[in-house]
């Protein structure tokens, strides 16, 4: 017997949950290996080994804690239940959205909390409200920042004076005038380098091109809904382009917003989670537009390096509301639903632009370049 899950209309469905998860696992492992290779080449084999070990520990922690949970709750077939609960997928995603300097202990504890509290307490796979991996990373960010391995931090993030593109953009209040943008981005090897992912960030944020290829693979296999990913990316691009033009930053600023940080990874691997996003395609489009808005608002206004994670968590809470808004016969009421999607999207984008119009650059000097960093690059070369 093969059960399938997809937004209605269901009749054109060809993928089973097991198949989707297998493809997703392949894509995640490819991204993980690509990151390990990138870190291995740039920062030494011990960092590459560290990434692999983090993934192994997280997957083991997820499998063992789920098996124990099923044993305590007296599930009969523990092996099947554990394999079909897909905690190990959560663990892989969690490792990919973590920074490489996070301690093994933090990864293990937050994986366990994410799997047990974030998923199994809600009733298991398919019942969880929040994206478990995002929940785990939120715990790491709120609880384990100080436990980071300082040797690794020094090696990866301080090697050429500190910041990732995201944290330094955050330091400038996420507003870099187009005249200074070339200076700013040259610190990270230009936009082309950002597309190749050749800069330190979260583990899975490092190889943009690999993520795009894996996303394309998943879309081609019909594992993820392209509406969500593409709407999310386009919304981020459009909103940051409009705000950038209003504020004197330009086209490349919008591209930077799309390529930087966890946006690409979030677009293909997290926002597409079928469990925590709305059921219908119109609902998912609203979800994607609103998440894009929240991502940018959090980048501009919150004291966080990146907003992808928390925007997804916040929108997960609104999923039932969006489902209720779009409720009804999707084919007969198509016009009505299209209008709803348009109205909500326009309101949300207007809010983003209004908030964006209030942002100000926090740069105290005139240059958008870190002197120390440039000096260090010069000496390194």
């Amino acid at each position, binding site marked *: 017997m093969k059960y399938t899950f997809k937004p209605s209309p269901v009749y054109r469905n060809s993928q089973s949950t097991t198949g989707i998860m297998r493809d997703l696992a392949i894509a995640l492992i490819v991204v993980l290996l690509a990151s390990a290779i990138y870190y291995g080449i740039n920062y030494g084999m011990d960092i590459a080994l560290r990434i692999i070990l983090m993934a192994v520990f997280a997957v083991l922690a997820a499998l063992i804690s789920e098996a124990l949970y099923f044993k305590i709750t007296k599930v009969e077939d523990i092996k099947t239940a554990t394999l079909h609960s897909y905690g190990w997928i959560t663990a892989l995603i969690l490792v990919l959205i973590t920074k490489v300097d996070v301690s093994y202990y933090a990864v293990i504890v937050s994986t366990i909390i994410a799997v047990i*509290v974030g998923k199994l307490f809600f009733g298991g796979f398919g019942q969880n409200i929040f994206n478990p991996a995002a929940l785990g990373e939120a715990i790491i960010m*709120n*609880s*384990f920042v*100080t436990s980071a391995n300082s040797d690794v931090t020094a090696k990866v993030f301080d090697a050429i004076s500190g910041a990732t593109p995201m944290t330094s953009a955050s330091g400038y209040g996420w507003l870099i005038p187009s005249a200074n943008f070339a200076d700013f981005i040259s610190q990270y090897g230009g936009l082309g380098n950002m597309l190749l992912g050749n800069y330190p960030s979260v583990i899975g944020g490092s190889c943009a091109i690999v993520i795009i290829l894996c996303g394309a693979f998943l879309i081609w296999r019909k594992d993820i809904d392209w509406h969500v990913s593409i709407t999310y990316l386009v919304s981020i691009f459009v909103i940051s382009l409009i705000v950038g033009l209003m504020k004197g930053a330009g086209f490349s600023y919008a591209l930077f917003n799309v390529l930087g940080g966890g946006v690409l990874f979030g677009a293909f691997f997290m926002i597409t989670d079928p469990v925590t996003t709305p059921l219908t395609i119109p609902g998912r489009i609203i979800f994607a537009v609103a998440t894009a808005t929240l991502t940018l608002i959090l980048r501009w206004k919150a004291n966080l390096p990146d907003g992808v994670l928390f925007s997804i968590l916040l929108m997960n809470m609104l999923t039932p509301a969006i489902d209720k808004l779009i409720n009804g016969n999707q084919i007969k009421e198509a016009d009505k639903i299209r209008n709803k999607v348009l109205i909500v999207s326009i309101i949300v984008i207007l809010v983003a632009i209004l908030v964006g119009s209030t942002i100000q650059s926090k740069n105290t000097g005139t240059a958008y370049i870190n002197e120390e960093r440039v000096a260090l690059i010069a000496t390194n070369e």
Partner: protein
Amino acid sequence: MSENTEKKQGFFSKLIVENPVFGLYLGICSALAITTSLNNAIGMGVAVIFVLVLSNIFVSLVRNITPNDIHIPVYIVIIATLVTIVKMLIQAYTPSLYTALGAFIDLIVVNCIILGRAEAFASCNSVGASAKDGLMMGISYTLSILAMSFIRQLLGTGSLSLSNPFNNVTLFDVRLIPQGFEIPFFTTQTGAFLTFAILAAAVTAYKNHLDEVAKKGEEK
């Protein structure tokens, strides 16, 4: 449950089944907020026991002369007076506890356990029974928040400590989880909710277990 099984339950199971925090979900606000350390929990518990016993006694004393229309304001005046006394005593003798508990001392006035017991028990029972009920409820409340703060302090900071609130001499400070392995998340509000939910689930499971045992007993 029948009269018989209720009598069979010991003091301990009574504390669990009629627990105001995890059984009736009363007084959760302070239980979530101040349970970051054992010191806070004990201080809060003693303050609540004091207010609860005395308010039950006074409410029981005036139960026959209180007009039914204004009984809530009367109770609130009694409780507020007692809370003000407690607050002044804490401020005078244990200033460190006063700063740690902060506004939550004042908020004992609106702690649902106290008004709830005054309304449900003391207003229709004798003085002695009311005092005993207040003591029981106060002890259950204290034990509940002690359990919560035990878990939160242990997991959140890795060590358990207790100090004498009168002169701030540390009575004991044991590190049970090595440095770097604590989970600071448990000292935040999220950790409070998580701890509360897990303990409440455990209490409910125990209750269900008791019910099942009682059912089996009746069937026999």
